[in-house]
């Protein structure tokens, strides 16, 4: 009697640790126990230590460089300047090669690399570095981005002018809408410079190869893009350099630009010795780009019942001296400048400008964070002006599937913002303050209050972030998957160049392989350039893109395995009727036919696949119209704060969040992303800022650049939705960035609720609460 047709899961149990499960991450225990090898732990016998001499000035002409005294120090093996750069003298991340490997005739920001030293001992290298005599003719730094905007030809940090990119967005007729509006509100907002503050400093090891090439071990976010920039500067072909990912201690965008890669390569090629470079914390603050500071002017008009009629917006982003990611950050600020709201008439002008302030580029949220603080502040202002609840005003204007963004792009997958807000609002509020434990109070155990002056506030924030690369970029990832029997057990080897930066991609890749191939044992090969480009670990894109590539490669391997099974099992079953479940080859009609091991035998099945997401289009340079994003993700936050209104100190009591991730691949991982993103947003709201005056960084240390501790970051309530995006692998939505957007405005709104202060700038400092102007609608 023929068996009824069953689903594969009914005839063989799926294995554990697949998609939707939360297996432990392989690096987790090592990291918690302090045993994980980070790039700063790299070591090789006989290696030299590199050091970088950096400019003390934000803007100066270099009149002379004398390396003689440094070279004379015993133990010094090389002292190099721009004259020693073997190839192209400049590099840059986004095909704009305007950043000198080493300063040539001028320096454009504090901390710009000027010369390199390699020595037997790091202390020797540092001492020698101090002996390099650089003559500077100091110039007045250009530090006011609005002044640059007013006079882009006069205040030029770069030859091409003062403006990196101007991206307008024009929809409808703002002037007519203004005349028709019942309610008009406006505000000016400012975002300070946030730092990625990753704990593992920039580090790597360059080893000269016997063939004249180079082996590089570096903590980076994007191996192949590094290679494209490194090779021409070192005068090598790309295939002469082999690059392997070293242990990465956090990234958040700060490792997209090169740091020590070319420098260590130059020193290694010059000396013929392995060279290690590892920045200390102070140097790290100068060794990578930061989040763009922003100055923003917003005006909104609405009907009396709170329906938005128009938005008139200007966003100025200070990119510092070099282009880095400013083009794309500016594009994001423009396309997402008014957030996930339906507004029929829009005028946005987003500018990226060059100054002599610290260089800025990619950081989690990438241009969407700055705008989100402004547009959410505006929504609260509008709510007050219309006499509406902050949640209600957002619901009335919320986008949904089918809505148009400012760019005219139609949202073609679920975007249930109104429902998310309703769910968020319905979550229970935390209990009232219990002042019996100092740790519950603003100020914590520093005991600034026993409850006096403490006022509770509640605020909401909404954010929308593009996932994957936008504006027409051909974004793809590559995966190679190999299936073979090792020690009697079917084993999948997954090889990609995608950077594990702490986000948990190695776990996700293994989960996908288990699900697609039905095996238990998965090995993740080290990320290197011996497989195709994976793209960057940024834009919340790796689960989507490299996940998609691993899935595609696994599907190809599986097809081959099933074809093999069809042949080896005597031709009774067609490959199309077979499936792999829980390590077994299964026929829908006849149940388990055999194990993968039996079918594979000595055969090795290996496939490589590229995965490209749906193409996007550029933004029109005049109207800002275009379907520039392949996926959009929403997160909403509610923050509850206790503020000591007399001292201006804040305790965030609770954050609640609703985020739609399409499909939960790994719940622990997604929760970690939402917690971490919210914490980073909390940091921007109340403490994290690189303070700059006259182009000089005043707090390059973790003593004075503060990031939240466990006593600052409250417990969270999470509601994670799974409305699938049909275009994405498993329907997933990138999850890493959205919570970084909405947490900041939610917290600031809560502080405004408690204090009645305007607070138009983040991070909010105690003196802003104590001395700041009142909030008025």
């Amino acid at each position, binding site marked *: 009697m023929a068996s009824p047709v069953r689903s594969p899961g009914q005839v063989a149990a799926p294995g554990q640790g697949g998609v939707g499960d939360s297996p432990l991450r392989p690096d987790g225990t090592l990291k918690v126990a302090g045993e994980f090898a980070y790039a700063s732990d790299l070591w090789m016998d006989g290696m030299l230590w590199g050091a970088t001499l950096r400019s003390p000035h934000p803007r100066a002409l270099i009149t002379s460089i004398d390396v003689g005294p440094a070279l004379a120090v015993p133990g010094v093996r090389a002292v190099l300047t721009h004259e020693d750069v073997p190839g192209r003298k400049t590099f840059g991340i986004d095909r704009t090669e305007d950043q000198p490997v080493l300063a040539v005739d001028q320096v454009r920001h504090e901390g710009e690399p000027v010369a390199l030293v390699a020595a037997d001992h790091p202390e020797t290298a*540092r001492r020698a570095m101090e002996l390099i005599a650089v003559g500077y003719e100091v110039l007045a730094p250009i530090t006011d981005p609005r002044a640059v905007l007013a006079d882009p030809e006069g205040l030029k940090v770069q030859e091409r002018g003062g403006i990196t990119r101007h991206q307008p967005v024009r929809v409808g007729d703002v002037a007519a809408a203004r005349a028709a509006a019942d309610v008009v509100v406006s505000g000016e907002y400012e975002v300070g410079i946030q730092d990625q503050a990753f704990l593992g400093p920039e580090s790597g090891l360059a080893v000269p190869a016997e063939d004249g090439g180079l082996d590089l071990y570096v903590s980076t976010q994007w191996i192949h893009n590094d290679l494209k920039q490194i090779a021409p500067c070192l005068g090598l072909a790309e295939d002469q350099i082999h690059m392997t990912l070293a242990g990465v201690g956090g990234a958040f965008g700060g490792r997209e630009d090169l740091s020590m890669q070319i420098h260590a390569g130059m020193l290694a090629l010059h000396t013929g010795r392995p060279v290690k470079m590892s920045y*200390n914390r*102070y140097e790290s603050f100068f060794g990578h780009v930061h989040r763009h500071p922003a100055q923003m002017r917003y005006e909104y008009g609405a009907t009396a019942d709170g329906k938005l009629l128009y938005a008139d917006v200007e966003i100025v982003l200070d990119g510092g001296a070099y282009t880095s990611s400013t083009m794309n950050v500016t594009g994001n600020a423009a396309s997402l400048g008014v957030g996930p709201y339906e507004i029929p008439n829009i005028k946005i002008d987003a500018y990226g400008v060059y100054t002599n302030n610290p260089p800025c580029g990619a950081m989690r949220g990438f241009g969407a964070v700055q705008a989100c603080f402004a547009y959410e502040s505006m929504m609260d202002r509008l709510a007050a002006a219309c006499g509406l609840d902050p949640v209600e005003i957002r619901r009335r204007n919320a986008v949904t599937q089918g809505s148009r963004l400012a760019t005219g792009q139609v949202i073609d997958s679920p975007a249930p913002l109104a429902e998310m807000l309703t769910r968020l609002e319905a979550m229970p509020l935390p209990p009232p303050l219990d002042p019996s434990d100092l*740790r519950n109070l*603003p*100020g*914590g*155990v*520093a*005991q*600034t*209050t*026993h409850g*006096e*002056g403490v006022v509770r506030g509640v605020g909401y924030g909404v954010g929308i972030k593009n996932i994957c690369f936008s504006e027409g970029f051909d974004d793809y990832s590559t995966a190679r998957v190999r299936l073979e029997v090792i020690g009697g057990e079917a084993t999948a080897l997954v090889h990609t160049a995608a950077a594990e930066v702490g986000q948990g991609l190695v776990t996700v890749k293994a989960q996908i392989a288990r699900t697609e191939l039905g095996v238990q044992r998965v090995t993740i090969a080290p990320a290197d350039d011996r497989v195709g480009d994976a793209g960057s670990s940024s834009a919340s894109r790796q689960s989507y893109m490299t996940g998609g590539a691993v899935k595609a490669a696994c599907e190809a391997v599986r097809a081959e395995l099933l074809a093999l099974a069809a042949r080896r099992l005597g031709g009774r079953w067609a490959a199309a009727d077979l499936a792999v479940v829980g390590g077994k080859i299964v026929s829908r009609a006849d149940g388990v036919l055999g194990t993968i091991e039996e079918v594979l035998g000595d055969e090795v099945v290996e496939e490589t696949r590229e995965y490209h997401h749906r193409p996007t289009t550029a933004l029109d340079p005049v109207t800002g119209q275009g379907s520039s994003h392949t996926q959009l993700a929403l997160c909403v936050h509610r923050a509850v704060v206790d503020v000591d209104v*007399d*001292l*201006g*100190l804040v*305790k965030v009591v609770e954050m609640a969040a609703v985020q739609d991730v399409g499909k939960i691949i790994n719940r622990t991982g997604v929760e970690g992303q939402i917690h971490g993103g919210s914490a980073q947003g909390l940091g921007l709201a*109340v*403490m994290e800022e690189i*303070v700059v005056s006259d182009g000089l960084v*005043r*707090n390059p*240390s973790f*003593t*004075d650049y*503060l990031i*939240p*501790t*466990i*006593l*600052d970051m409250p417990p969270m309530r999470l509601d994670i939705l799974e409305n699938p995006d049909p275009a994405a692998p498993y329907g997933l939505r990138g999850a890493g960035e959205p919570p970084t957007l909405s947490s900041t405005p939610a917290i600031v709104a809560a502080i405004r609720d408690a204090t009645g202060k305007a607070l138009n700038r983040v991070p909010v*400092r*105690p*003196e802003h609460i*104590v*001395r700041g102007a009142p909030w008025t609608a």
Partner: protein
Amino acid sequence: MDFLRPATWADALAAKAERPGALPLQGGTDVMVEINFDVHRPEALLDLTRVRELAGWDTVDGDTGGGRLRVGAGVTYTRLIEELGGRLPGLAQASRTVGSPQIRNRGTAGGNLGAASPAGDAHPPLLAGGAEVEAESAARGVRMIPAADFFTGVKRNALEPDELIRAFWTPPASGPQYFSKIGTRNAMVIAVCSFAVALHPGERRVGTGLGSAAPTPRRAAAAEEFASAELDWDGRGPLGEAAARRFGELAAEAASPIDDVRGTGDYRRHALAVLARRTLTWAWNDHRNAGRRAS
């Protein structure tokens, strides 16, 4: 850089006499940070962690002691909290705000005094409690330096080049003590400003200490005088709102704060007034409640 490791107090004093440029090292939570940041490179480090005499504390009676506590320079913040929290509550509260648990396990009040940072957390409660620093040299022996005279400038103290800190002496609390510190996050933060208050009911006196609000930690003498005279020591009557405010204003006037990356001078002055008002109120209310319970 030489690394000197004396095993006894006598050896330590001899080493310091011979190498006055040697920088004393206890937990290293300050010294090592400065070395890592290359702020300065001392000619030698004088590691005092093996000197057992510094690692203990005792109550000293008799003419010199008068029941005071003598706390060795090597006693860690963690031990100040756990072993002396009942007798030195202000110092224990301040110790609790120092760094992380790991830092408190290593760092010492002796090291805090040696570094003499205006932001040192131990200093305000030592000032408010009337502590003295026991300094010793091989050549001249022991001298006692009142905490109020110990801090001579930004990161400078009254020690001679050949002197080491042996201990600090302070009476156990005879009344309520509070320490309060402003930071821009809720843990592991350097003081934007801080304030300590100690009631000495036997002497009908209020002690104070300001931190991070002047080139040195200092007392707020006018505030002390005002509160000492104002408080109803006999009747334990309530502290009026106006008096508490006045105390706060006088405490703030004692400060000469600067604008820096951690906060503005204006905010520091404002915050000190609030902290002084609140801490005196807490202390006085505790005192009144203690009296009520006793009667």
